[in-house]
């Protein structure tokens, strides 16, 4: 059970990292417009194609 003394602090570090990630994601506006994100991938692909056609 000695490993707990290592694993629990690691869990705490991961917790801090996830919080930092969440903070960054919220701050950079990723949750501001939830309707938008679903469609993003479709659009950019098609733009590439239509440009290649030209």
């Amino acid at each position, binding site marked *: 059970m000695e490993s*707990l003394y290592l694993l629990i602090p690691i*869990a705490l570090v991961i*917790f801090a990292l996830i919080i930092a990630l969440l903070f960054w994601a919220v701050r950079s506006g990723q949750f*501001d417009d939830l309707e*938008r994100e679903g469609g993003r991938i479709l*659009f950019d692909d*098609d*733009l590439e194609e*239509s440009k290649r056609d030209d």
Partner: protein
Amino acid sequence: MTTSCFHCNEPVPKGTNLFVSFDSSSHPVCCAGCQAVAEMILSDGFGAYYKHRDEPAIRPDEHRFDWEIFDDPAFQKDFCRQLENGSYRVDLLVEGITCSACAWLIEKRLEQTSGAVDPQVVTASHRLRFSWDPSRAKLSVILQALSALGYRVRPWNEENAAEHFATELRSLLFKVGLAGIAFLQVMMFAVALYAGEMSGIDESHRSLMRWFSLAISIPVVFYSAEPFFSGAFRALKGRSLTMEVPVAIAISLAWGSSIVATISNSGEVYFDSVVMFVFFLLSGRYLEHRAQHRERQTLFSLAAWLPTSALRFVDGGFQWVPSMAIREGDLIQVLKGETAPADGVLESNAAYLDESLLTGEHLALKKLAGDRIFAGTINTGESFCYRMDTPTEQSQAAKINELLGAAANDKPPISQLVDRIAGAFIASVLVIAAGSYWYWSASAPQDAFWIALSVLVVTCPCALSLATPVAITSSILGFKKQGILVTQARSLQAIDRVDTLFLDKTGTLTTGELRVESHEILNASYSVDRVLDIASALERESSHPIASAFNGRDTAIIPSDLEIVVGEGVKAVIDDQEWRIGQPGFCDPQAQPEAVVAMSVNGTLVAKFVIADTLREDIFNEVAALKAQGMEVVLVSGDHQDTVASVAKAAGIDSFYAAQKPEDKYRLLQRYRGQGRRVLMVGDGLNDVPVIGGADVSVAMSSGAALARCHADVVLNADKGFGLANLFKSAKRLNLTIKQNLGWALLYNLVALPLAVMGFVPPWAAAIGMSLSSLIVVLNALKLSR
């Protein structure tokens, strides 16, 4: 079958021969404006827009004008902010954004435009932000590119409440997210600790897990729970006890005692309960805030219902300018079907205006030279000129806005059952806890602290404070499935006490679409179909609202020499005979004036039509159901006496008030409220907005004006029927659940408190009891979401 426009999806008028080609086939469009925009979009390689959009585009404004006013530095300072590198950050509100495809289109187009860097569109708030380099392009040139795609812009107003709201929502999301992640983490330690409690755990391991739970709970208590502490502080400063006070007390006590237990390595820790409690309470707040945000982010400034462009007389001719540029004294022309941009005095001989904005009445009013023209009213006749004499901020439309502000201020507060209980409850618990500490410190000093703590923990107001919010949160989700959007959750509790219903006519009881209610054929040699076909052919070109009643017939009749006589009707030649439709006197000089649309051939009457607004389906049953619940139903409309009376009769409503202006409606509301009535207002128009702002509970139809929607407590989806009876039924269920929850929480406390005072409840059992009572409350509330 009518075909619909490739770009805006509106029906393509007969005889229009405009097409665009896309995906190697050719698609019809409804007007030159749509064609130009669609070709622009396709030639730039943005065809994906048409493939992936969820909503059709808004029909573009056909007027081309330059955006010169945006190059004026004095004007720019409102929405441009200089950045360190010399470029500017520009914030604009874009009109015409309907779905995420629009956002993509705008961003891609601007990326190709020189001078605009890093464009970002927020679909929900319709905001566009980009960096602008003045040395590379004028702002007006950049905006020209956008307007070629059919989008219009106006400055983004920083004081716009939507902006503030979005920031608030972000911070709340972060608080919820933090609490949620911490909740998972602390729960993992808690499970280990509970398991250890049962099967034995090494002292040092227990201590280790407690210390780490403590570490994780610190940000939750100090950051996520901050709204509860500041709310409690405000309440105490104002010498009142709201529900936030017991929440704050519960958090600090449970957390504080857990710290004591951790440091002294004894007793029990409640970190898991604290974090879970904060997470549940915040989730409810977040959901409610998002629902409000959805409505508020829709355009709701005064400018939103005035046109973006105006036709102003400059240097001997009329020129299109943005409406922001017009000033008092300008001569303005309003074309057929367009909206007047400002208040002023009519200079043309006559004009026909739809003043539904101010009165709710959709039929046109005749105005003569010298009469006043109001901003926001629609020209239903031929084009006219008038001179602006009042600044936009003082227009009649602006006054409705002010009235709304006044109304919102004296909206009655909703007293919450739980707030009334809270004060007495907290006070008595604190007294009892202190009393038991005092008693036990005399007989068993070593146990006194833990017994007092048990009293506080076991009576933890968690269940009590969760009782209302979880029930409301879960019923908001339930309402959503029925097409009812709740923006002010607290109002749901007030619905139960409503005894008077104010209903608006147009758009609420009726759908706002005109149709031919009945027809009378006066000349037997014409069939009904033939008559309606001819009427439809005659009215096709007219923009008068009544003409829309005849739409929807597919006829091959092409009239020639068609002429629209303003305020009278339409005449045209079909099969060498002169047909007329319109006022009875216009069709046949000998005809009696009547409130019908007449049709004649060569001066003799052929048919009469009664035009009426379409009543919502099922409205009669709905009203009857509401009346059966003991509700007084009142119809309040800006329309004429006769029309209102007939609609009231058809819907089964006994009392009605006709010809009510917005201020009359508001006065009526005050009168009823003075008699001790609790009023629920249902409306959809701008003329209802003051009453919506001031009623005990207000309901708007989703098809209504944005301003009405964003001030209403509840928004009903108009497509799904009236749904008011449903709303009442669900609100009743909600209130029942809240009462059950509160009853349960109080009962639990009544049983547990004496046991704890007597020292029978060890702290760990208190913690289990606390969690269990909260869980029951949450589960009971969850059934509302189904």
